[in-house]
């Protein structure tokens, strides 16, 4: 009934309509019912995305039988937003060997085009599904907030931006919606803008993201000058000629059409910088923990499940470019591995439940970068798979933390409450499932996706371009997995076990949350528990994703054959053991021998490790000293220069007419005859000038 183009337009259009409706009517008309447009719009959008997914699946199955195509894609061109003819100065034929059908049409044509391919379909379903559940959850969580309608307008706007981000087929449009989700993130972090911390966190997120976006923008410029187009897809002109898209079929079909060497590495590193900003990777990860000042549903939706994965999506989309560069994937893996280890080391000692989850998000994003950084098809699909499962269990954990926070009257410090399992049974059970998934306990979704990443790394360490590096990264990833299991269960045990402690802020509020909040928890818990196993054993996920044109490329043009991710028994057993060991250590330390914790802490503190971790490795402070202070000083100097030197010059210029005015003022005597005489003399001068 619904064709792919219709669905592709419907998915972003419905949240946009919800945004407009809520923004227009929310304050005066809808008031307490402001959630309806957003919930309905996002829900329908989810259904559309689901339909789209099935249609794409069917189309993929048919495309397999057809002639040679690189994967499956369908591009829906809506309109051309801007067309500057002859904007580029590239001589015909460059770069590289140019087939005759590529012509030097260097029009700067920005097509507003949406694309349907497996990657987009998966992202759309993930985004809209989690968004829908978070929107339902927010009905309860944001109840009676003065900015109720504003919240839902922002959420719907975010869903619109995010769905557009994953479905546009142009780098410029990608950049635009990249910024749009950043804007929504800024608005929602600073949602309680009266709170100074929230306003500061919003500002910090925006500014840190700006650095990444700057790199991304440079990368887009470089792509334009290198490839002469910004479209992903091929454009077939009326003349029958084709402009090769950056990631178009015709370019993917033949090897060697991608620019290699230094320029390619530069493009990839700039894109990687953008991805680091959006996906909170070292060194731009500092904004994400502070972003927890926003409402918890926002943290769950934007800063855990969806927006932060934009970087992963972008790198996966641009995989051929990274391939062409050769070294870029190793940079991705290096950054991912380092970030994963760093963030999990910080999370071990944090006491703020949401911040622990934030650092775990950073760490898991680092994991996804590791998967992408493997550079192989199994690695990339493993990264995307982890993104998919992570969206469920991290959203679940955040929403569970929000439920705890809701019951504790806004308190989120795990030292101040404990033993809540009897008071909040649903939250407890769902949170436990989320923790098991995050800790990669065997059988839960996180285990399978993480295992695929580890396998991909392990294979690279056996035979690949730089086995030593990937071996180290594999070890780091294993260590991260151990730490992840440990800190996850540390937080879980401190929250739900031990003697019951309830902070006084909670009052008589310390009970289970309403149904609108627990229902999404249960649904997410079911998915967190089983989605990984389902896709792992059917191999459906990676096989489906392999039909994405960008991902099909490496499989086609490199030696490695496109095969299903191998099940490596040794790696699997090792990672299961690591997870169980971490969980067991947490259980022992925090439930059995609580005294040991203090002693261990003291021992660690003696060598400075505890303080280092607790202080988040002092990266914020380092940035403050190394970046903020010098910039503030520069700003102050500029201010001084502007205030006293530039303004002084301007004032000096301003003094000239003032001085002239002061002299000429004396002419304004108010005497009628004086003015008349001046006029007559003026006329006289004009007459004489005319005659002479």
């Amino acid at each position: 009934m619904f064709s792919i183009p219709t669905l592709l337009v419907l998915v972003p259009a419905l949240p946009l309509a919800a945004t407009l409706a809520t923004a227009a009517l929310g304050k005066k008309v809808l008031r307490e019912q402001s959630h309806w447009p957003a919930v309905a719009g996002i829900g329908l959008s989810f259904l559309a995305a689901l339909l789209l997914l099935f249609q794409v699946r069917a189309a993929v199955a048919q495309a397999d039988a057809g002639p040679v195509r690189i994967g499956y894609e369908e591009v829906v061109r809506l309109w051309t937003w801007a067309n500057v003819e002859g904007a580029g100065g590239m001589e015909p034929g460059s770069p590289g060997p140019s087939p005759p059908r590529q012509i030097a049409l260097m029009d700067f044509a920005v097509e507003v085009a949406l694309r349907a391919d497996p990657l987009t379909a998966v992202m759309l379903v993930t985004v809209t599904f989690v968004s829908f559940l978070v929107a339902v959850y927010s009905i309860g969580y944001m109840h009676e907030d003065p900015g109720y309608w504003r919240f839902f307008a922002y959420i719907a706007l975010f869903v619109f931006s995010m769905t557009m981000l994953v479905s546009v087929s142009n780098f410029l449009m990608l950049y635009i919606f990249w910024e749009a989700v950043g804007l929504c993130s800024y608005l929602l972090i600073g949602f309680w803008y009266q709170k100074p911390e929230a306003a500061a966190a919003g500002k910090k997120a925006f500014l840190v993201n700006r650095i990444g976006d700057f790199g991304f923008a440079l990368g887009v410029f470089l792509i334009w000058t290198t490839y002469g187009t910004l479209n992903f897809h091929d454009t077939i002109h009326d003349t029958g000629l084709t402009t090769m898209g950056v990631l178009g079929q015709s370019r993917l079909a033949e090897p060697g059409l991608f620019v290699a060497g230094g320029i390619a590495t530069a493009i990839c590193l700039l894109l990687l910088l953008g991805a680091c900003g959006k996906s909170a990777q070292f060194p731009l990860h500092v904004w994400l923990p502070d972003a927890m000042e926003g409402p918890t549903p926002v943290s769950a939706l934007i800063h855990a499940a969806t927006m932060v994965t934009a970087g992963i999506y972008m790198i996966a989309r641009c995989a051929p470019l990274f391939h062409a560069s050769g070294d870029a994937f190793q940079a991705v893996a290096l950054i991912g591995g380092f970030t994963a280890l760093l963030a999990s080391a910080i999370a071990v000692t944090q006491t703020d439940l949401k911040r622990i989850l934030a650092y775990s998000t950073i760490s898991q994003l680092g994991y996804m970068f590791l998967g992408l950084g493997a550079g192989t098809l199994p690695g990339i699909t493993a990264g995307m798979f982890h993104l998919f499962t992570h969206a469920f269990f991290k959203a679940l954990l955040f929403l569970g933390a929000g439920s705890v926070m809701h019951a504790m009257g806004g308190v989120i410090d795990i030292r101040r409450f404990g033993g809540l399992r009897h008071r909040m049974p649903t939250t407890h059970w769902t949170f436990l499932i989320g923790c098991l998934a995050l800790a990669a306990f065997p059988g839960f979704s996180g285990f399978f996706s993480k295992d695929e990443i580890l396998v991909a790394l392990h294979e690279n360490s056996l035979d690949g371009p730089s086995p030593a590096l990937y071996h180290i990264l594999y070890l780091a990833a294993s260590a991260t997995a151990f730490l992840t299991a440990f800190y996850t269960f540390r937080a879980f045990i401190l929250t739900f076990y031990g003697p019951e402690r309830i902070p006084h802020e909670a009052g008589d509020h310390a009970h289970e949350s309403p149904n609108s909040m627990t229902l999404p928890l249960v649904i997410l818990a079911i998915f967190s528990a089983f989605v990984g196993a389902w896709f792992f054993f059917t191999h459906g996920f990676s096989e489906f994703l392999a039909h994405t044109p960008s991902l099909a490329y490496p499989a086609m043009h490199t030696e490695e054959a496109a095969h299903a991710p191998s099940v490596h028994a040794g790696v699997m057993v090792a990672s299961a053991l690591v997870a169980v060991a971490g969980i067991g250590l947490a259980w022992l330390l925090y439930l059995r021998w609580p005294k040991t914790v203090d002693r261990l802490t003291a021992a660690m503190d003696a060598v400075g490790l505890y303080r280092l971790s607790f202080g988040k490795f002092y990266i914020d402070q380092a940035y403050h000293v190394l970046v903020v202070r010098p910039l503030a000083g520069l700003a102050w100097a500029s201010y001084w220069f502007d205030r006293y030197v530039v303004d002084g010059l301007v004032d000096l210029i301003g003094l000239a007419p003032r001085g002239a005015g002061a002299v000429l003022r004396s002419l304004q005597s108010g005497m009628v005859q004086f003015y008349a005489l001046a006029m007559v003399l003026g006329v006289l001068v004009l007459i004489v000038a005319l005659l002479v």
Partner: protein
Amino acid sequence: MIEHELNLLTNFLVVGALLFGIGLIGFLTRRNMIIMFLSAEMMLQGVSVSLVAWGRYFNDLDGQILVIFIIAVAACEAALALALILMLFQRRGNLDIALWHDLRESNLPPYVDHELPEIPPYQSGPWPTLTPAGRRPDLPQQETDYRSHV
């Protein structure tokens, strides 16, 4: 007879210019508001003379019609100017235009004449009186043949 008409035009234009110039000089120099007004009217007369001359030269009645409008406007002007001058006179007690410069720049001192003319001494003469009805007025000799003032 083109020569005749050209010469006529020349003469009238020069007379018009003279009237205009004299009126201009009067407007610029005289400080009595009424004389200034008369001078302005004189400038209008100069223009009127020129207009009539041109109208005759081109055989166009519009010149004369424009003069009629000038007279009408001058009448309006006279009515308003008289009312204004009367008001101003009531406020300051004389007709000196130099007293009215309140719109000068605030930092300028008010205008002051540094030198005032000698005013000839007042020669008082008898004012006219009315003799009651029915009696023959006995006018002094001085009154009948000389008046020092109007």
